[in-house]
Every structure is written in structure tokens, then in C-alpha cells.
């Protein structure tokens, strides 16, 4: 096993994971919402990109925004339907509703895109780069660059702009934000739309690496969950580094032990962390 090659793989994978998870981090941090349809939204982003590129013949750079728009639309619709549940903070129903949406997306995607696996080829993924012993593609480089830019931009917006301030106010106390004249409903809609856009962007960039199926998405949810938990709920910097750590772990575990069980292994690590150091995630059932 080539150590540096795995290192490179790990870094690419890590940035991919961070990008996949960022929508969830913001959703959880600002609106305290979970989205169990996340994996299916990822799948949708991948397929819309694929469809635009290979069936509609559009250039990749056009397909990506289209996928993001589809993501925004889905996210917006989901939150619009769930709005009363969100305002009541009925977390149980929210979880089940998002699961239901994921299932509907699965069915709809199967209907529209079929059940065979596809390969998303982009101009970037077809260009290999050989650097000494190492091999990667321009797609991998794009993943890293976009991820870093996205994170930096997001951090700036959250910490320095009015929009970010509004989001932080709603994150801390929605009721108090209402008293400050903020339309909290619009913030929730916006955050869900953002999650849709972010996960679609991640899909458009990362999906070319493996074949895509309309039944996929579950591994992505696990990955996202691990990244968000390890990185600290709502922490943007935290989820970036957690993503990197997970990426490196996955690359090395896959090369050293078994590629099929990487997700299971990551999950096992997470369980170990949760059990040994529950931190802010452990509030015993029965406390808020």
C-alpha cells in the first residue's frame, strides 16, 4: 500500500465528507432540525447532474447549478410542509416526515431515472493527474478547492454578516428572535433550502467518483452523522476537521482492512466516542 497515495485519497475523501455534511451542520445548528432525507437528496443531486450531462447534453458547469436548484426546491418544499411541526419543535414527527420524504424521493427517482447504476462522467473526472507515484483526477482537486472555498465563505457569512447574525439569533432562541422582529419562518425555510443546495453541490462534485444508484444515500447519512457529531453540533470549523479525520480514517481502513466495512467501522468509532465521552449529546432522556 502506498502511504502517500492513501493520504491523498484520504484528503480528497475528507473534503468530500465535509462538503456532504455541511448542510446538515447548518440545519442542526441554526434550526435544530434533522433531515433523514439527506441521503436521498444527495442521490437526487447526483442524478440530476448525471441526467443534465448525459441525457440533456448540458455542460457540467451548467448541470451543477441545476442540481443545486433542484436541491433548493426539494428543501423548500420539505420545510414548507413541515413548518408547523418545526415551529412546535415536534422533533419526533419531523424525523419521520423527513424519512417519508426520503422514501418518496427514492421512489420518484426510481421512476424517472430507472434502477440501473450510472456513472457520472464530468470533464474533470476524465482527466487523470499523475504526480510521481500518486494518481488522482482533476475532479478530486475540484472537490478540495470547492470545499475549502465553501467553508471559508460560510464561516465569513455566519460570523460577519447580517444574515449570519440573524441565523445565530434564531439558533440561540427563536422566540426571542421573534420579539426582535425576525421572521423566523423565513429563516427556517432558508436554512432548509440551503441544506438542499449544499448537499446537491456536494453530490455534483463527489458522485463522479463512484457509480450511482437510485437506492443509494444511506452511507452518506452515516458519514454526515459521524462528521456532525465528531465536529461538534453546529460548528463549521469542527465539521471541516471532523470530515478530514473521517476521510483519512476511511482511506486507511479501506486499504488496510476491508473496503466494504468502512462505513461500519466509522460508525463503530462514533459509538465508542459517544459512549465514552458523550459530551453535549448526552442529555438523558427526560431532560431538554
Amino acid at each position, binding site marked *: 500500500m502506498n502511504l502517500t497515495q492513501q493520504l491523498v485519497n484520504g484528503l480528497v475523501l475528507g473534503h468530500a465528507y465535509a462538503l456532504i455534511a455541511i448542510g446538515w451542520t447548518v440545519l442542526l445548528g441554526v434550526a435544530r432540525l434533522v433531515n433523514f432525507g439527506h441521503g436521498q437528496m444527495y442521490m437526487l443531486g447526483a442524478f440530476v447532474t448525471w441526467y443534465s450531462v448525459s441525457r440533456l447534453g448540458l455542460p457540467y458547469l451548467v448541470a451543477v447549478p441545476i442540481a443545486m436548484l433542484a436541491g433548493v426546491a426539494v428543501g423548500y418544499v420539505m420545510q414548507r410542509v413541515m413548518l408547523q411541526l418545526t415551529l412546535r419543535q415536534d422533533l419526533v*414527527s419531523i424525523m419521520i416526515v423527513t424519512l*417519508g420524504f426520503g422514501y418518496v424521493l427514492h*421512489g420518484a427517482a*426510481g421512476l424517472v431515472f430507472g434502477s440501473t447504476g450510472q456513472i457520472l462522467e464530468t470533464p474533470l473526472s476524465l482527466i487523470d493527474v499523475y504526480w510521481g507515484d500518486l494518481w488522482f483526477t482533476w475532479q478530486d482537486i475540484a472537490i478540495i478547492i470547492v470545499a475549502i472555498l465553501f467553508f471559508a465563505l460560510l464561516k465569513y457569512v455566519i460570523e460577519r454578516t447580517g444574515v449570519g447574525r440573524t441565523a445565530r439569533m434564531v439558533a440561540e432562541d427563536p422566540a426571542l428572535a421573534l420579539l426582535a422582529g425576525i421572521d423566523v419562518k423565513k429563516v427556517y425555510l432558508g436554512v432548509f433550502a440551503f441544506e438542499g443546495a449544499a448537499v446537491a453541490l456536494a453530490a455534483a462534485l463527489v458522485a463522479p467518483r463512484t457509480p450511482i444508484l437510485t437506492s443509494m444515500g444511506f452511507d452518506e447519512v452515516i458519514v454526515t452523522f459521524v462528521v456532525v457529531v465528531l465536529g461538534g453540533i453546529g460548528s463549521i470549523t469542527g465539521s471541516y476537521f471532523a470530515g478530514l479525520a473521517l476521510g483519512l480514517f476511511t482511506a486507511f481502513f479501506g486499504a488496510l482492512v476491508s473496503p466494504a466495512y468502512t462505513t461500519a467501522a466509522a460508525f463503530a468509532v462514533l*459509538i465508542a466516542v459517544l459512549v465514552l465521552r458523550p459530551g453535549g449529546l448526552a*442529555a438523558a432522556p*427526560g431532560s431538554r
Partner: protein
Amino acid sequence: MQPALRLALIIGCAVLGLFLPLLLGGTPAIYSAAVLIAIFAVMAYGLDTIVSDLGEVSLAHTVFFAIGAYATALLSTRAGLGPLGTLAGTVVVALLAAGILGLITLRLREFVFSLVTYAVAVVAITVAANWNFLGGSDGLRGIPAFELGFLGYRAQGDAELWPVAYALLLVTLYLMRSFRRSRLGQAAIMVHLNPRLATMSGIDPQRTRLQVFLFSAPITAAAGWLYAYQRAYVSADLLETYFLILMLTAVVLIGRRLLLGPLIGVAVVQIQEKFFSFGGYVDKIILGTVLILVLAYLPGGLVGMVQALREASRRVRDRDQTAFPAQTQTESIRKAGP
């Protein structure tokens, strides 16, 4: 209604239920649907205690279902155990798994608990599809027919399996009813409605959650046990989201905490799929949409909707009779002023 009369009525209905498939035509399709409805209803009842009583979402119950099926397959094909033996094995393994999962998640908040159970289910798919011990992606085949040698009873086909399925359903209904009247059931409701008050009444919410979890897992696993015999083979597709969505929809569609709710819910969904299907993908869309609509707009299920309509029409009738509290006292005091 007098208790004796009530009991007679219940027994009468129970007996009637046994002959229901026959009364509806007795075709293989009907028996098959009936057996599956019974099995999936039992599966849903396990989740019902967690969602309706405890008020949390466990996404790991598909794993318990699969555990039941896989344990049955392994014990019957490799250890040669009969149905009673495999049932015992199923219950033991389910309790073990629920215990481990329950202890791991003991101190976690509700939504983290749900996330972890979700992740367990996803990981279980990977394991089931890759581990040769469990048959890998081909699964395990050759499960023998359901046979109780000492009774001379052998079930070949759904019509003959139906009494077993029905018996399992009746036992489950009895267990659910007993649970809701038991101390544990009451404790679960209290933790659900007002956790702080429950703690101050001496209830340990964590222990309650663990105990309800341990109670619910073998029920769902028992459904898996029978499903293994019905299908005669098990594979990783038992862990598909379909079963989870089916369970959840059944639990919320009719109304929360209604004894027959999940049974009717499962029946509605299964009848749609077996007799009014629009194809696999469209059925998925329909099922998912039903789940979404019920939760977003009909929190009390269909029964709740009927109740709300009745309440609304009653309020319209009462509206004209709302009088404003007598203003005389306030007015006279104000007039007394400076």
C-alpha cells in the same frame, strides 16, 4: 357494558377473525395477504410501544425484524431446531441486541438516539450483505416448513400458516393491552408527556426507555421469525427501508395509542399494494406521501381527524352562547374614581 358481555363479544370477534379470510373468498391470494398483514402488524406493534407510548423514534426495529428472521433461518437450517426452538432463540437474540443497543444509547438525547438507531440499521445492511455466515448477498435458503411434530401440524402454504399467524397476532394484541395497563406502560406515557414531572414522581426515564426497548424488540423479532417460515428464505433485503416506512405509517395512520390502529394501518397499506398497486416505484411514492401527510397535517391520524371535525362542528354550535364575563363589577369600581 357488562364485563361478561364484553368478554363474550371479544371472544366472538376473535373467532370470527380466524375465519375472515375464508369468508372473504378463501383464495391463495387472500390467505397470503392475511398472513402478511398479521406478520407485519406484529412487526409494527413492537415499534408502536416506542413511538406512541414512549414518544421516541427507533429506526432500529427493522434490525430486530431481521434478527428474528435470520436467527430462525440459522437455527432451523444449521441446528435443526423446530419452530418453538427457533422462537425461543429469536427472543433471546433480540433481547440481547436490544440490551446492547439500549445500554449504548442510554444517555443520549432523543434525536441522537434516533440517529444511532438509524445508523445501526444501515450498518446492519452492510453486514448482512457481506458476511458469509449470514449468507452474504444471496441470503439463507432452505428454511423448512413450519411443523409442530408433537401436534402433527404441518403448514404448507399460507392457508395453513394462517392460524399460526393469527395466533401470533392475538398474543401480540394481548401483550400490548397488558403493557398499556402495566406500571411500565404508565411510566412510559408519563416520560413521554412530561419528563420532568415523571422524574419527580420517582420514574427513571433512562431505565424506562431501556425497559420499553427490551419489551418491544422481541415482538418485532417474532414477526421476523414467522416471516422466515412464510418466505422460506431470508436475505439482506429484509433490512430495506420499506419495512420501516410500513411500520411507521401503520403506527400513525389510524391514530396514536389505539389498540387496533397498527393492525388496521398495516391492512390498509397491504391491501393497496396487493390489490390496487400502481407499480413498485409509485407505491413507494404513495406510501411515503401518506406518511408525510398524516404527520404534517393529521397528527391524530384518521381517527383524530374525525374527532377534530366533530369538535369543530360542536364549537360552531356553541359559539353563539359564549357570553362575555360580567362587566358590572369593573365598571362600578372605575366609576368610583377620583
